[in-house]
């Protein structure tokens, strides 16, 4: 079962004039194929200059996040049969575009770096593994599935208007360590996220939850961070 789809793609070619334009391509795809397959077909047979990131092609590496029919998604995880015949594709919003669907993720990753994104525990490790109950491990289970594709942060209206905001992805990373029983940097990390650019800027808009390809309830995690911060004496909007 194959049918034709029209891919309307927002182009950005820094060496051409005009730099920005919309191109349309007609592609025949079967009902198992994904938006990524369509993009590859276009690149291979119609326009070799069309540029996008890709790698694993099954939703685990996070390379191919883009805006598809108005919503941030992974191209490799979006089946064309679930979309209308006209598929409109743009790069992830609110980050500088490098070329076509490739955005500069530097700012996004920098946010992550600010939350001390690594396990901190300076106690000498035991001979064997640190003991963690399954219940405690389950507390971070959802947060560790994040693939850092950038869909959430670039869908967040707070981030759109304020590039200083840490954003949902970085806050989820903070959660992953703050709620890991093995981590000992609670104060330090809370300090990093409870300032004016951190958790209090989240207004529970839920855009991040709606777009997350791993179906992580990010807003819920941020609410838990807020609760923890208050418990530990960090007040809204202050250091």
């Amino acid at each position, binding site marked *: 079962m194959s049918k034709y789809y029209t891919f309307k793609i927002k182009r950005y070619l820094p060496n051409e004039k005009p730099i920005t334009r919309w191109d349309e391509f007609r592609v025949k795809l079967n009902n198992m194929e994904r938006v990524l397959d369509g993009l590859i077909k276009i690149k291979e047979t119609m326009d070799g200059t069309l540029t996008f990131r*890709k790698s*694993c092609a099954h939703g685990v590496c996070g390379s191919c996040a883009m805006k598809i029919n108005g919503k941030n998604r992974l191209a490799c*995880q979006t089946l064309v049969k679930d979309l209308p015949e006209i598929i409109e594709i743009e790069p992830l919003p609110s980050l500088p575009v490098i*070329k076509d669907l490739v955005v500069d993720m530097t700012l996004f990753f920098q946010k992550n770096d600010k939350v001390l994104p*690594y396990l901190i525990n300076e106690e000498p490790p035991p001979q064997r*593994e*640190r003991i963690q109950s*399954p219940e405690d491990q389950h507390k971070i289970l959802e947060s560790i599935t994040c693939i850092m594709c950038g869909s959430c942060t670039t869908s967040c209206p707070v981030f759109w208007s304020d590039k200083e905001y840490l954003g949902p992805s970085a806050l989820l990373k903070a959660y992953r360590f703050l709620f890991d029983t093995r981590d000992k940097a609670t104060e330090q990390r809370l300090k990093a996220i409870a300032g004016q650019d951190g958790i209090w800027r989240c207004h529970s808009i839920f855009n991040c939850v709606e777009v997350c390809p791993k179906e992580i309830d990010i807003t819920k995690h941020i609410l838990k961070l807020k609760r923890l911060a208050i418990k530990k004496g960090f007040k809204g909007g202050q250091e």
Partner: protein
Amino acid sequence: MEINKHYFDTIIIGSGLAGCRAAIECTGKGTVGVLSKLYPTRSHSTAAQGGIGAALGNEEEDSPEWHTYDTVKGSDFLGDQDAIEIMCYDAIPTIIELEHMGVPFSRTPEGKIAQRRFGGHTKEFGKAPVRRACYSADRTGHAVLFALYEQCQLRGVRFFQEFQVLDIVIENQAIQGVIAINIKDGSLHVFEAKVVIIASGGYGKIFKVTSNAYASTGECLSMLFRQGLPLEDMEFFQFHPTGLYGLGILITEGARGEGGILINGKGERFMERYAPTIKDLAPRDMVSRAILSEIREGRGIDGKDYVYLDLRHVDKKILNERLPEISTFCKIYMGIDPSEAPIPVVPTAHYAMGGIPTDIDGRVLRDVDGSFIQGLFAAGECACVSVHGANRLGCNSLLDTVVFGRRAGKAASSILKNSTKGKVKRERVALITECLEMLKNNKGKETVASIRKDLQQAMMDKCSVFRTEKELKLLIDEIKTLKERYKEIEITDKSKTFNTDLLEAIELGHMLTLAEVIASSALQRTESRGAHYREDYPKRDDENWMKHTLAFQREKGITFKYKPVKITRFKPEERKY
């Protein structure tokens, strides 16, 4: 063209598990730079699902000796037993160390690292399956990669992301450095170094149906081979038994470890016939052959070219907690819920046992006599130590990356003091610039996509699970024709910015080189062992072939030399499960 020059004591190519683990080992002992053609956490290690093997004995009695035996037997006795022993004994402290670094392993009720069954891993030398694979649900690679990358960040490792390596510079039998392109702006960068560790991963993209990422194209291996260095045991390529039908997406062996079974079109649990003792948990080479034999004999589902992986009888709680990712894949890509419907599966190109020959410390060997390239190391899937021999056991690849990533890092750091800084000559850079320009400006009627497609199809048809002399000879001719066609390629994108059109053309050139090595290595080995199954030579032939193949590029074409297998504890025996 303006050249950007950098110096690091250690350069690591690749930021998957082996690269990151090596980098951690190198910090504090000199400057470290890691080059990755992707953003580091997008490396394909992240797609590893089921587990990482270590005889921790957390769920039942286990021993590194049993692990060693299983790995030797799994390798069809081609693995080097000294290296295997190191890996299986090192496994325990290595996994404990990963846990201390923050890997969020799944847990037993007592809070220890949880373990499950995996193919070919047994207790008491083959008596019954054993719980040896440490896991984080079915996202183990992801969990380990993130923890290692995070530890690299903590230690201040410098990453050059989206830098693609164009040349690995060796002169006077010593490493000098690496030439790379910054994908973002097309600028050329020369990285001079005292040591280079190659951890560039696999090359499954040479085959049409594969679990591997688009990035798994193997150019680093080809770069060494073209400079006259050998590649070892390239005929051994693993097909994972359970790839999603039509897509090749991996469904972890852990699914069978948790109780899943394979059934054919007649509803039979056919693995009972092929491996009566451990059945569906037989090693991958055997299960893949069994599936394809069932299909060939007309017992695929409805006579078609796939079988079912049945998880319907597995407790829903186990599916949700231990196999959530593959359950999601089934829902997204096939529209089925594995708790209600069986999963259509077929073998998928998965893992290269062969690669860059190294010793047990990751030193890259340049000949069968053990001589090596000064300052050059390799670890992970790109390397061949050899711990996997003719067939790798599930959950031993992640183990290999961290054990030998660490050893390579340690060995590399230890020679820094007595090594001189590498020098990359201008002429070498000029050659690369010229190549890039040529590829960009070449005129012809061929496209990268069409040649790549033909290559992947030919490799799949003639060099996958079953092989014959006739088909392999045809394949080698086809590859030669494809190489001729490659000279006629024309690319569309002429820009400097993020030119994936150009980079794919470079990758394809290397894929063609590797494909010829794989096919030629497969042709010359006239026996069947592990993943290399010759229908015209269906028996293992220890008398003539208990040896490693080393392929070399010479003027007259590919030539072969051989290296004995290191046998220490376990004498070769018939491989039955």
